[in-house]
């Protein structure tokens, strides 16, 4: 399966605008997809949880309201990762 990860703001400096992760199964947990990108887990995960104010969306839904890092991700899903940010 193929999963697209989109990066925003300061994360683009380290990871570019997007990365595609390919896996030989139909679905997997979010943490496994994250682990496939060099340096990404260290950037956004701390002590087994997503760092405060980082936002990970799967198809536009914040994974805090799904299964967090255990959220099931399927072929064609879009993952968006945002660092802490604000505006008005």
């Amino acid at each position: 399966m193929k999963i697209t990860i989109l990066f925003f703001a300061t994360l683009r400096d380290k990871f570019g605008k997007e990365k595609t992760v390919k896996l030989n199964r139909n679905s997997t947990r979010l943490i496994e997809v994250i682990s496939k990108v060099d340096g990404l887990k260290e950037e956004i995960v701390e002590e087994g949880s997503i760092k405060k104010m980082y936002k990970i969306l799967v198809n536009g839904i914040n994974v805090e309201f799904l299964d967090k890092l255990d959220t099931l991700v399927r072929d064609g899903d879009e993952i968006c990762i945002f660092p802490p940010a604000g505006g008005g």
Partner: protein
Amino acid sequence: MGKILRVNLTDEKLRDETIPEDILRKWIGGRGLGVYLMLKEVDPKVDPLSPANKLIILTGPLTGTAAPESGRWCSVTKAPLTNTIHDSQSGGKWGPELKFAGYDAIIIEGAAEKPLYLWIHDGKAELRDAKHLWGKDTHATTDILIEELGDKNIKVMCIGPAGENLVKFACLINDKGRAAGRGGHGAVLGSKKLKAIAVRGTMKPPIANEEKFREAVRINVDKLKKSPVTGDALPKYGTAVLVNIINKHGLLPTRNFQTGVHPTADKYSGETIAEKILVRKMPCWGCIIACGRYTRIPKDSPFAGEGDGPEYETVWAFGAQTGTDNLEAISKANYLCNELGLDTISMGHVIGTLMELYEKGKIPEEKLRGLVPEWGNPAAIVELTWRTAYRSGIGDDLAEGAKRLAEKYGMPEVAMVVRGQELPAYDPRGAQGHGLGYATSNRGGCHLRAYMIAPEILGVPQLVDRFETKGKPALVIEFQNGFAVVDSLILCKFNTFATWVDDFAMLLTGATGWDITEEELKKVGERIYNAERVFNILSFGDGKEYDTLPARLLKEPMPEGPGKGKVVKLDEMLPEYYRLRGWKDGRPTREKLEELGLKELADRLESEGLLPE
């Protein structure tokens, strides 16, 4: 705090006054003091563009001090766009300079026979002829005054042609690119023929307890620097860092709130602005965040220009709201708004309203003079901005705002407004609490009375489920009261990504010597919010009927994206909101008003049969 300059433009007389300390403790300054003075001196039924309306310029007790992000000022008036009490906040450098020039506030009343400007310098004030400035844009006005008054450190706040032409969302521009944007304050000054206020000063604002204040500043600055929002993303990408966040959450209002997803929004995001057109950051006075942008579109572009911005709200208003993704055209429209003195949110929003009306065949060709206001037409957004400032052709209709425009052309339902003010850059079908904040905003469609996007999307201070209604009324009230305090001190709201009312109480205690607690300060915020509602009730019978949203947001499910199928469930939130506020059907009860020390307002409502039983 408390030194007022009263300017009567009818008599051309100026007078110094003082506000008693007990009043200042009850209303603080800024928005709060402005609301108090408007209720005291202006009949809420007044025509906003008549000489009987007043416009009050205010700083707060923290303006121009070492308190972080204290470089702000505000304007309070009865707004021509909404007929509500209306405060409009601005940054830049002008506010502190007014303080240094020796005044905390200016009450502008009456109307001049011919154009004038006000010059204030180190405790002295005078009205001068502005015939040579009338008709000029804000940049030319600023340059001429600095040259004429002979000091490059003079700061200028002025109106542009839009204010002179009484455009209902004309704004006040200071430092060439900062705006007291919403509601049409520029039209109020235009109706009074006051073109500009130039200020220059060397007087330092007093601090009551230097040691306590310094410690409070240290604590506040430390929190701001440690926050990843204020210390990293905002300085690097500006407010437009929100474009992709909001779009990917599916609540970026697109083509007049017909959907919440704009597929090409990254083309005008903060990331793209930083990459393609950013010249430098533009901090306000005393700011350690520096979210402001100065950008340039190259000379070989048909949209060549440069200036402050564009901000998030602006790129949304000229971007997704009009179906455009051309960053150069969006930026050009932004620069024009600064030069002509137009609120970017309302301007872009109203163009979107026009585009929907055009799409539905409602606009006669002869009004357009060949212009094609189709979704995504970049040239149209620039031309319509010019036409609006000068009330030319269809521009004359746009100048009245989205509500009057949609009503005139027979489709009032496409006006996405609350209390007549155009909704900004968040579709509330994607954030229920934000919808409640919109509906109950005293100054009309506004995201900054209760910025519920912070908890519902950004996770500040904590992430809450944006599609849930439970618990939202209490949060909305906390924000509304807290932001009323922020607008009265006056501080930048970006402080609130790291600090809150308890931290502000420390700053205020040090600055004034009052020993004010968090609880007392929150009470001040509640008092301000209730007083504003009273002004509106006296003005046009505000209440439950007006605490609502356009039918599109209540009844038409979001058609696509992460929020697909959602509507705003206002009926689930409003009763709890009223209960917590101590209001009945959208109006404060006598009990609530007396609890807040506002017995006289309860008596006024009762005398007009407007007090709920």
